């Protein structure tokens, strides 16, 4: 299969969006770039942006590798992506509203009822609940991969609490500091207004009980969470409070935080705590990370929870395979962005196919994330294939399979010069009752190992600054 390199193109001549950058690069001295690359790493260490990797006790906090070669997308390419992302997010939101109300899509037989009824991400407590302004997915991360000049696929939707936006912002800031001249030569659309847009978007989703200027806060599970840095970072950049469950009380029918002037009601809570831990009275009774009674206040219209509880039913990997139907059902339009063809292993014929072609496929757990528990057929050993075959036979409904896509590459800077590495892209999408706002670019994750297709930071992936050019 031909590999598509976003900089070099397929025929080996520099693609347009990279022309100006390439001209600059060819004038640069390798020693200076190496020094810059080390400097960038030091900057990240200084700002303290780290990531806790689960299941790796020897390296609990680790720096995610940053690569100084930007990933560049033309304005024209972006326009199509942006329309596709908007359409998808609109459809996800409509799907969530439907699933928690009349369930027309199940009645119409377009999504089988078992996909919902047997799904732990479906929260009965959300049935009949209208989130303020009708918004379920205030923040979404849509993971995209590319296989050719015009071929983008959605790999997965992240509609719960997508992370990584702090890397997008820090990467840009670092690049601006390291190479200011590049931003004079290239017209790169800014991303630095993301925190302001996030705050504005959240405030626009305030609940009926809100009086005056909405008060926004970020709820974190605490400093031991792998994304704690990002929670603190976003609260700081938005200029809002970072709170934990035990800081909050129910006062005057509102969820309120303790301040020096007594308890102050929160209008919009950007929570980075999973549904199950959000409220011990409604969900996991053992949870100490949440706020007892917050769901009751929410159901009474006293607070906006962002994202709304129960959005996980839309980004489940088994539901993912129905996204083309979902987009058509709610928008009446053909999906602009393609889905990766997906075999649902709970269907007999699909399972047979997957078992017969295991060494060519990628197999994922339906509820998994972070690249854990997946099989990449072409890279797997005989032993790994055997063990996955057993897992598939034991619990077929727990897995989906997809063809191994030939992901596009973008060069990374190595000691021996540029080398192609596979990338994906997570654009961040904000939704308020008034508008959908897609930040130009997003987080580019890059597999730092040669030939590797796993870009997850928990599996050794790195990141790049992502440029969307003004055409």
């Amino acid at each position: 299969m031909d590999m598509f390199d976003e900089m070099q193109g397929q025929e080996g001549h520099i693609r347009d969006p990279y022309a100006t950058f390439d001209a600059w690069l060819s004038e640069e001295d390798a020693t200076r770039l190496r020094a810059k690359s080390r400097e960038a790493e030091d900057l990240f260490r200084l700002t303290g942006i780290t990531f806790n990797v689960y299941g790796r006790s020897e390296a609990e906090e680790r720096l995610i590798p940053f690569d100084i070669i930007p990933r560049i997308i033309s304005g024209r390419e972006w326009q199509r992506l942006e329309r596709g992302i908007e359409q998808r997010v609109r459809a996800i939101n409509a799907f969530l509203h439907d699933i928690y109300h009349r369930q027309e899509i199940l009645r119409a037989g377009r999504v089988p009822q078992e996909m919902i009824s047997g799904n732990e991400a479906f929260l009965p407590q959300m049935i009949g609940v209208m989130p303020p302004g009708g918004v379920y997915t205030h923040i979404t991360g849509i993971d995209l991969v590319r296989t050719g000049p015009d071929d983008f696929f959605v790999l997965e939707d992240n509609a719960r609490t997508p992370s990584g936006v702090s890397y997008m912002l820090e990467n840009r800031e670092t690049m601006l500091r390291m190479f200011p001249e590049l931003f004079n030569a290239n017209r790169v659309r800014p991303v630095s207004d993301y925190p302001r847009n996030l705050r504005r978007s959240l405030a626009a989703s305030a609940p009926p009980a809100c009086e005056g200027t909405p008060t926004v806060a970020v709820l974190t599970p605490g400093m031991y969470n792998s994304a704690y840095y990002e929670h603190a970072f976003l609260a700081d950049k938005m200029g809002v409070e970072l709170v934990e469950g035990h800081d909050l009380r129910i006062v005057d029918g509102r969820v309120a935080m303790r301040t020096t002037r007594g308890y102050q009601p929160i209008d919009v809570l950007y929570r980075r705590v999973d549904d199950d831990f959000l409220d011990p009275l409604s969900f996991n009774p053992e949870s100490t990370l949440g706020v007892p009674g917050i769901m009751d206040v929410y159901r009474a219209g006293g607070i906006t929870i962002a994202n709304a509880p129960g959005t996980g039913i839309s980004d489940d990997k088994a539901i993912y395979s129905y996204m083309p139907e979902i987009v058509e059902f709610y928008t009446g339009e053909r999906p602009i962005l393609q889905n990766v063809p997906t075999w649902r292993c709970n269907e007999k014929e699909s399972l047979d196919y997957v078992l017969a072609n295991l060494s060519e496929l990628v197999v994922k757990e339906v509820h998994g994330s972070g690249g854990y528990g997946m099989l990449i057929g072409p890279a797997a050993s005989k032993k790994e294939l055997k063990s996955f075959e057993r897992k598939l036979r034991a619990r077929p409904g727990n897995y989906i399979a997809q063809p191994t896509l030939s992901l596009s590459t973008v060069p990374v800077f190595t000691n021996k010069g540029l080398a192609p590495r596979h990338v994906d892209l997570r654009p961040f999408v904000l939704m308020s009752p008034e508008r959908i706002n897609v930040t130009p670019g997003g987080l580019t994750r890059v597999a730092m190992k040669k030939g590797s297709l796993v870009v997850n930071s928990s599996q050794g992936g790195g990141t790049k600054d992502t440029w969307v050019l003004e055409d």
Partner: protein
Amino acid sequence: MRLAINHTTRYRYTAPVPYGVQQIRLYPKPTRAQTVVDWSITVKGATKQVEFDDHHRNHVMLFSFDPDVTELVVHSQGLVDMADTAGIVGPHEGLTPLWLFLSSTGHTKAGKGCREILRRIAGGTDLERLHDLSSQIHGAIAYETGKSEIAWTAEDALAAGHGVCQDHAHVFIACARAMGLPARYVSGYLRMDGQDEQSATHAWAEAHVDNIGWVGFDVSNAISPDMRYVRVATGLDYTEAAPVAGHRYGMADEDMDVTLRVTQQQ
């Protein structure tokens, strides 16, 4: 028939409670069998925060503990007019899909004990089989108070061979769902014949039968609910229909007592 209900639950704490919340489902549901003429709920030691109708159409009130209380009293009283509908509650209503009532929960997971009961079930129609189920459970689990635990599952109660109304309802629900019939838990009041003072609130179960709708089954008394049964809250199991559920901070232990009068006025 008009029933007058006077229900007080008194919680005493061994130490002052710094903070906590109490969720209360104590407002009888209007149905075709019962009309709420008058109802009031007051709580001493806590302040009402919000109220709403949940996905089972239970009216829920959330209270927060007043600072450092050592006693909390929940009092509800009112008048409900009852009609006899032979245990039939009626068609399924609301947005919550019927299929939800087929999902097993922690309390209502059918295991070995339930399967054993199910093997013995006889009857030509779903309704007959459900009546048989009710009497089989009545025979398998003796009603005995003070010897079971609130956290018991259906299987726990079957293994023990004794339990209270909650256990009877959970076993019935687990078995009905295993038979492919939607089922739910009901908490409410029962006026025992010739008796004004009741020892506790009551619980029973409902199953959904095609062409009839929801039908009640009180396993503990081996009958279907009649005019003496006031439906208050429903849910997939006890946890969703509990009259009171709370979450407290601090170390205090709790001591609870209930007084309940259900009297017939007409």
